[in-house]
């Protein structure tokens, strides 16, 4: 078997070796190297490396010069000038020939920009990822909705409207500021509308929701499919014992079970005061801070059932997550849930 040193030397010759190093090779070797470089430069080859040769799905124990390709193509469809030879000849590799291997891996792509949170991205603009008003740390983009022919971004008021302290037209960051979203480059939308809270110690509120209008140049980046899930198939009313799923900026895809569909509680909104809710949906714990705004879906029907916004995280007390019924959210904002791909 060729030594690792000779394998690396052959790899260098085919990829990064300067012309001066080529000049020291024999005419035959230079011809081989030129051919191999042409192969490496073809559009279908996405990377070259050294790895154990696999034959018919089995490891051979022999190191090979490996050509990683977008797709494997039959030899009869490849021109001879771009076909990967079965081995690197001794003229290049040293005392013994080096076997080659071809592995299909598709095209490499950047996963999540330079962002520290894998549940944050800049493109596409998609439900499940980090979003927030410029003065808010981070929440989750819940869904795409429409009103008067406009496609809008749905999340909580405390995510998009700074709990009602924001003004229509305020900037929306995607990803949110906690996830390194910065103005002006990450301003993707403007606050369009929200439902004001009735503040006080009474159970009076039904929703914590707002919508933002994407800026014109980002309209083409909108997606209605929830990250790692599907496009919601409509809406459904919550029911006790319903199994639900959501994708949030902090905890990603999680599941829970509905426990109570008329839950009442009072919580504190910073800078606003106490806000009491009624007819909320209390579930087993499925969320954490930053998941607010996630669309909650019925696992069975794949229909939207709610908009997540609060929770009881205390491990020594009550553990649970709470969402607004989606029909109340859509009605309060006068919007319709997008249930098809956005073209």
């Amino acid at each position, binding site marked *: 078997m060729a030594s690792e040193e000779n394998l690396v030397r052959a790899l260098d010759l085919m990829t990064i070796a300067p012309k001066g190093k080529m000049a020291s090779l024999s005419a035959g070797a230079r011809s081989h190297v030129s051919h191999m470089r042409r192969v490496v430069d073809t559009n279908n080859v996405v990377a070259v490396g050294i790895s154990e040769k696999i034959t018919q799905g089995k490891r051979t124990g022999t190191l090979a010069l490996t050509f990683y390709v977008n797709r494997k193509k039959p030899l009869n469809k490849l021109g001879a000038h771009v076909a990967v030879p079965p081995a690197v000849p001794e003229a290049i590799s040293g005392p013994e020939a080096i076997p080659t291997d071809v592995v299909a891996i598709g095209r490499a792509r950047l996963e999540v920009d330079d962002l520290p949170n894998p549940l944050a991205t800049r493109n596409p603009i998609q439900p499940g990822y980090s979003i927030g008003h410029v003065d808010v740390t981070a929440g989750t983009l819940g869904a795409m909705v429409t009103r008067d022919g406009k496609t809008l971004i749905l999340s909580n008021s405390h995510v998009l409207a700074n709990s009602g302290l924001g003004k229509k037209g305020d900037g929306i960051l995607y990803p949110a500021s906690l996830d390194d979203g910065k103005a002006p480059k990450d301003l993707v939308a403007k606050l369009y509308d929200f439902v004001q809270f009735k503040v006080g110690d009474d159970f009076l509120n039904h929703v914590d929701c707002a919508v933002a209008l994407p800026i014109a140049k980002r309209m083409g980046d909108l997606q209605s499919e929830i990250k790692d899930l599907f496009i919601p198939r409509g809406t459904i009313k919550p029911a006790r014992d319903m199994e639900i799923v959501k994708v949030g900026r902090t905890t990603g895809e999680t599941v829970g079970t509905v426990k109570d569909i008329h839950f009442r509680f009072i919580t504190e909104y910073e800078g606003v005061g106490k806000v009491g809710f009624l007819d909320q949906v*209390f579930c087993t714990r499925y969320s954490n801070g930053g998941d607010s705004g996630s669309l909650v879906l019925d696992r069975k029907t794949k229909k939207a059932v709610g908009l997540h916004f609060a929770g009881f995280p205390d491990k020594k007390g*009550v553990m649970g997550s709470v969402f607004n019924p989606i029909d109340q959210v859509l009605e309060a904002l006068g919007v319709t849930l997008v249930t098809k791909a956005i073209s």
Partner: protein
Amino acid sequence: MATEAEAHRAREQHSDYLKDSGAHAIAVDKIQRGGEDTFGVIAFYEKEPPGPLPDSLEIEQDGKSQSVPLVTMITPRATLE
């Protein structure tokens, strides 16, 4: 023993009373009372309620009185997420 609908009704009728006693959240769920499964009202408090609370809530239904079990739990308020 109370049904889920009776527990919902008890919560609706007694929310103000429970809130005024310091409850910050009121749930309905299955509980056990006297060794039997039943639905009940669960009131969440940040600290012990200032005075004694009944162990059941009375509702009027079809001219008859019905008791729905009440339990309390000490737990912090909900937080926005």
